[in-house]
C-alpha cells in the first residue's frame, strides 16, 4: 500500500516503514536501547533527507522510551531526582542542538555533519563494544571467570561543588557533571536523531557510578523528555517533522520492542554486546562509504522558499 509522506515528500510503502519500525523496535528491545542510531540511518538510506529523518525519529524515540520508562517506573527502577537533574541540562542541550541544526541547514552542511558525526560516533562505540565483548568471550572460552570492569575510582570531577545526594541511586556527586551529561545527550539527540541510550548508560555507570538498578530507567526518562521536546522544537524551527512517517514508525517500534525484549533475555550478555557492536560498526561503515565514494551526481537541489 503506497502512501505519500507529506513532509519527506516521498511516496513509500506503508509496510516497508512498518517493517522498519518492527525490525528496529525488535533490536532496541533486544539490547535495551532506543534504536535511533539505526532508524535515522535506515531512513536516510531509503531516501528520506537527513534533516527530515533526524527530526521525525525524535518522536519515534520519545514513544519507545516512554513505554520503557513506564515499565521501569512500575518496578521503581527510576531515580526521579537524578532524572530531573539530567533533564535540566538535557532540555537546554536540545535547544542548542536544534539551533545548530537550523544553522547548518542554512549553510548546506547539515547532511555532511550528520554523516560525519554518525561515522565518528558509531565507529568508536561499535569498535569499543565489539572488542570488549570479544575479549570477554575469549576469557570465558579460556575458562577464566568473566571480570567485569570495576567502576572508576575517585575522578577529578568528584571534587566539584554543588554536591547532591541522589537517594534512590545511593550516590553523592556534584550536579555539574550530571548537567553536562544531560546537556550532551540533549544536544546529540537533537542533531543526530538518537536517544543516546548507548552512550548515556555507560557514562552514568562509569562516570557517575549510578547502580545498574536505576541506570536504564533513569536514562529512558531523560531520552523520553529530550526527544519529546526535540519534536516540538524541530517542528517550530525547521518544519521538518513528518508526522505520518513518525506515527507508523512508532507503532512498528513499540510492537517490535516487546518481541525483541523476549528474544534478548534468551541470549548471553557478551554475545548480545558483540552483535550490537558489529551492527553499530556496519552502520558507521555505510556512512563512511557514502562520504568517500564519489556521488553519482555532484549537484543537488534544496527548496529554500516556496
Amino acid at each position, binding site marked *: 500500500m503506497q502512501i505519500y509522506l*507529506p513532509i519527506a515528500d516521498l511516496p513509500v510503502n506503508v509496510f516497508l516503514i512498518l517493517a522498519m519500525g518492527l525490525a528496529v523496535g525488535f533490536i532496541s528491545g533486544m539490547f535495551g536501547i532506543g534504536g535511533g542510531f539505526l532508524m535515522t540511518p535506515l531512513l536516510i538510506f531509503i531516501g528520506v533527507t537527513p534533516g527530515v529523518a533526524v527530526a521525525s525519529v525524535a518522536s519515534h524515540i520519545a514513544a519507545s522510551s516512554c513505554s520503557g520508562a*513506564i515499565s521501569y517506573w512500575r518496578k521503581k527502577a527510576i531515580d526521579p531526582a537524578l532524572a530531573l537533574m539530567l533533564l535540566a541540562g538535557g532540555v537546554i542541550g536540545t535547544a542548542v542542538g536544534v539551533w545548530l541544526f537550523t544553522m547548518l541547514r542554512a549553510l548546506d552542511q547539515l547532511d555532511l555533519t550528520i554523516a560525519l558525526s554518525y561515522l565518528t560516533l558509531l565507529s568508536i562505540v561499535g569498535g569499543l563494544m565489539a572488542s570488549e565483548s570479544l575479549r570477554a568471550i575469549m576469557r570465558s572460552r579460556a575458562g577464566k571467570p568473566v571480570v567485569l570492569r570495576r567502576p572508576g575510582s575517585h575522578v577529578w570531577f568528584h571534587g566539584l561543588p554543588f554536591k547532591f545526594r541522589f537517594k534512590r541511586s545511593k550516590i553523592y556527586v556534584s550536579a555539574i557533571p550530571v548537567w553536562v551529561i544531560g546537556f550532551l545527550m540533549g544536544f546529540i539527540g537533537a542533531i543526530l536523531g538518537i536517544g543516546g541510550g548507548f552512550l548515556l548508560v555507560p557514562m552514568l555507570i562509569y562516570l557517575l557510578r549510578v547502580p545498574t538498578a536505576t541506570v536504564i530507567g533513569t536514562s529512558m526518562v531523560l531520552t523520553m523528555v529530550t526527544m519529546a521536546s526535540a519534536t516540538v522544537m524541530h517542528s517550530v524551527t525547521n518544519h521538518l517533522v513528518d508526522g505520518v512517517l513518525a506515527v507508523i514508525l512508532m507503532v512498528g517500534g513499540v510492537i517490535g520492542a516487546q518481541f525483541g525484549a523476549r528474544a534478548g533475555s534468551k541470549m548471553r550478555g557478551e554475545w548480545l554486546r558483540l552483535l550490537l557492536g558489529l551492527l553499530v560498526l556496519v552502520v558507521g561503515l555505510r556512512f563512511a562509504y557514502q562520504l568517500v565514494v564519489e556521488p553519482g551526481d555532484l549537484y543537488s537541489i534544496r527548496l529554500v522558499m516556496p
Partner: protein
Amino acid sequence: MMSRCRTALTALAFVLLTSVPVSAERLVISLSNHRVMVTSSFTGVDLVLFGSVEGDQASVLRRGGYDVVVTVAGPRVTERTRRKERVFGIWVNADARTFIDVPSYLAVISNKPPDAIAGADTLRRQQVGLENILLPQRIGPDVADTVRDDPFRQAFIRLKKEHGLYIERTTGVTFFTPTLFRADIPLPSTAPFGTYEIDVKLFADGVLVTQSSSALEVIKVGFEQFVADAARDYGFLYGLTLAMIALLIGWFASVVFRRD
C-alpha cells in the same frame, strides 16, 4: 488645438498598432480541467489542451502550416543548487547558487523540436524551450540570469528533469487539421500546488504569429495535505500534538504488553 490633434493621432496609432496585428490569426484555446485535485492516491495526470487557429474573413490561413509551443509554468519558488567537491577525501557541498523565483514546474510542449520551429534568436527572445527560460540567480547583490552553459544552471535543469518537474515534449502537440490541435500536459504526482500559467505561442514560417494564455490550479486535498499545512503553519501545535501522540502510543504499548 495642435496638441489635441496630436493626442488623437497618437491614440489612433496606438489602437491601430495593438488591436490589429500584422497577421490576423486568432488563437482559441480550451483546457480540459482548470482545477486539479491531488489526493494521496494521485499518481499524476495528463491534462488536455485544445486549440484552434482562426483567421478572419480578410486573411487567408497560411499554407506553410503552423507550429505551436505550449509552456506551462508552475508556482514560483526559490531553490538552491549545491555542488559537491572532494575535500580531504570526503565529498562535501562546496559551492551553491540560489535561483530566485523560478518555476517549480515547467513543461515545454511543441509539435516539433523548438529549433525546427524558429531561429535561435526568436526562441531566446520569446523564452521558448528549457534552454531559453529565464532562471535568475543571486549573484552577489544582484539577481540575474547567467549564460546558458553555466554549470549550475544546467545542473538545475537536469535535476528538475530527473525529478519529473521540468518536461520537454517535442511531439506533445498534435494537429488534427492544419488549424486544430491538442496538447497533452503531463502533471507528475509531485506537482507542487498553486497556480500554473499556461502560455500558447503560435508560429508560422519561423515567426511568432500570435499567443494566448490560460491558467490552471493544482490543489492538494486529503489527510497528507492537512498534515503538511499544519506542519508549515502551526509548527508549535503540530509538534506538541505529535509529541503527545508519541507518549500516548508509548503508554498504550506499556499497558497492552504488560507482563507483570
